[in-house]
């Protein structure tokens, strides 16, 4: 479209930039509890984004993604608490270790598709959860590890908020770059038609494996950030309901939209938070809301708005044909 090509970077991404600017000044006037909640949403959003690389782009429903989240959190906690390493080492090694786990699990899992893939990833993640849950000598079992030392700079929530925010932005750019690269396109092609991609000479298995490892990397980073936010890790980070919750967020926000998982993560975390203020039975309310949303907005919230925006632009561009 010639019209679209004329638009500058600023005009094309105005909503994105407004969003970034809003969250950059967000902590200036809001109370601490909101900043904390926002930081938590950023972390969960990163986790959901990493899952969507497998779920939305690759079309493989992973039900064990929380495993990498858990591994990332435990890596950070154990390195700082047991080996007394510097916090930067702990943060950097968390995604690396998580990626190693993803390499092992992905090696076996990406050969499968559909429900088989879902259950195999679930099996692996439950195995990791069971070990974290029961190995008292190493992971302190179901008590979790509490009191992770945090450097002075991150004692207050606002600096940590900015830290998480910057990491989220960098990760989003990286994920975007990966998704727009030939590699990312190949992943989508595999989702759409595995056989055709195989015949065109691409190594399907290698692509999916690498994609799985990259997703595990970002999930590990999210887990590490969450561990530092809470200053504690628990085995339940890796329980299958966490994985299912992330799948829910992706579908809720829209798997076909780039920022869909972020929308879903924010919507579900906020709903959980606000409904649970009014009633103990927030899951009933959330469940009913999910049912209503599935019926009324197939494509998720993000998909709904994207269709609206696209529809409007298309109407503007294409003249009415009688």
């Amino acid at each position, binding site marked *: 479209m010639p019209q679209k090509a004329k638009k500058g970077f600023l005009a094309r991404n105005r909503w994105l930039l407004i969003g970034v600017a809003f969250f950059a000044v967000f902590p200036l006037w809001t109370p601490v509890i909101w900043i904390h909640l926002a930081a938590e949403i950023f972390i969960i959003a990163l986790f959901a984004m990493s899952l969507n690389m497998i779920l939305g782009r690759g079309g493989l429903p992973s039900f064990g993604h929380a495993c990498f989240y858990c591994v990332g959190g435990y890596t950070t906690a154990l390195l700082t608490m047991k080996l007394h390493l510097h916090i930067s080492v702990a943060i950097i090694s968390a995604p690396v270790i998580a990626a190693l786990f993803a390499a092992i699990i992905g090696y076996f899992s990406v050969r499968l598709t559909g429900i088989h893939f879902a259950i195999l990833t679930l099996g692996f993640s439950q195995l990791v959860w069971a070990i974290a849950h029961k190995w008292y000598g190493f992971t302190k079992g179901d008590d979790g590890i509490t009191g992770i030392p945090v450097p002075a700079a991150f004692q207050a929530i606002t600096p940590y908020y900015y830290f998480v925010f910057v990491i989220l932005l960098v990760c989003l750019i990286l994920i975007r770059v990966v998704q727009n690269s030939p590699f990312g396109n190949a992943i989508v092609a595999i989702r759409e038609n595995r056989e055709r991609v195989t015949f065109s000479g691409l190594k399907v298995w290698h692509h999916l494996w690498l994609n799985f490892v990259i997703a595990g990397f970002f999930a590990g980073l999210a887990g590490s950030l969450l561990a530092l936010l809470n200053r504690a890790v628990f085995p339940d980070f890796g329980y299958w309901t966490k994985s299912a919750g992330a799948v829910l967020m992706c579908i809720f926000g829209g798997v076909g939209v780039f920022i869909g998982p972020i929308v879903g993560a924010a919507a579900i975390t906020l709903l959980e938070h606000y409904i649970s203020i009014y009633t103990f039975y*927030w899951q009933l309310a959330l469940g009913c809301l999910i049912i209503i949303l599935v*019926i009324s907005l197939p494509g998720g919230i993000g998909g709904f708005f994207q269709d609206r925006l696209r529809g409007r632009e298309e109407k503007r561009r294409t003249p009415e044909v009688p």
Partner: protein
Amino acid sequence: MTGWVLMSQFLSGLTTAMIYFLIAAGLTLILGVLKIMNFAQGGIYMLGAYTCYTFIKAFGGTNSGFWLTLIIAPIAVAAFFCILEALLMRRFYEKVALYMLLLTYGILIATYDMARMIWGWIIKTAPMPPMFQRPVAIFGHPFPLYNVFLIFMGFFMFFLIWIVIRKTAWGKTMRAAADDREMTAALGINVPLVFTSVFGFGAWIAAMGGALVAPMAGMAADMGIDAGIIAFIVVVIAGLGSLPGALLAALICGEVQAFGILVLPELAIAFMYLVLIVVLIVRPWGLFGKPITIK
């Protein structure tokens, strides 16, 4: 003595296996015919247990009350889920499987809180019917009679489901609809009605599992969350849609758990996941499934 320890472990594994089988059998039926991953299955099981508790209490904990409960409670739960299927799920079969997943997950967490709202947060136990309040002697050792009854019921339900699917006209229609929806509809069969009845039948089996477990173990609203996932594991080990496979896989899972406790008590839960991983790596299509091509 050690012989008896192994034997009693085997029997308790068998008891667990029967419960796994009942949840998984309904799931595999729904998966095979409706082609959906029903997350709500664990919730159905949980509601079956709670409904059974209410009915047993209402009938005053008598023997005849228990038998009546076993007939009424699962049917009541199944009827509730039939209505849900007709109202909510029916229109989504044509859509992407992911939305179905989200929908059943929504139903699962809604039933979870609904149970806490109705029956409270405290763990409940249904009274054991008087006729089962004594042990039987197995090789001279006492063993709870109710567990024996449960094992018997597991096998009975297996044969019942098998006969319904294989020998009745309705079972034939169901299998036809599973194979080719459009062709079955073209032959003048009301396919949506068949689907609703299959969903109801699957729900009935799971609710029966819940009702049978009610007098034996304490029930909490979250019992369905773990049970649902174990049912998925059983179904996948079995091979999707295979009923004998589900029985065998449930037996494997139950026994592995029972004997795992003897070997390594802390990691007993992990053994089942190990079995799952090994089976899926060696035979991704499950024990009784049709081989799928692996790339």
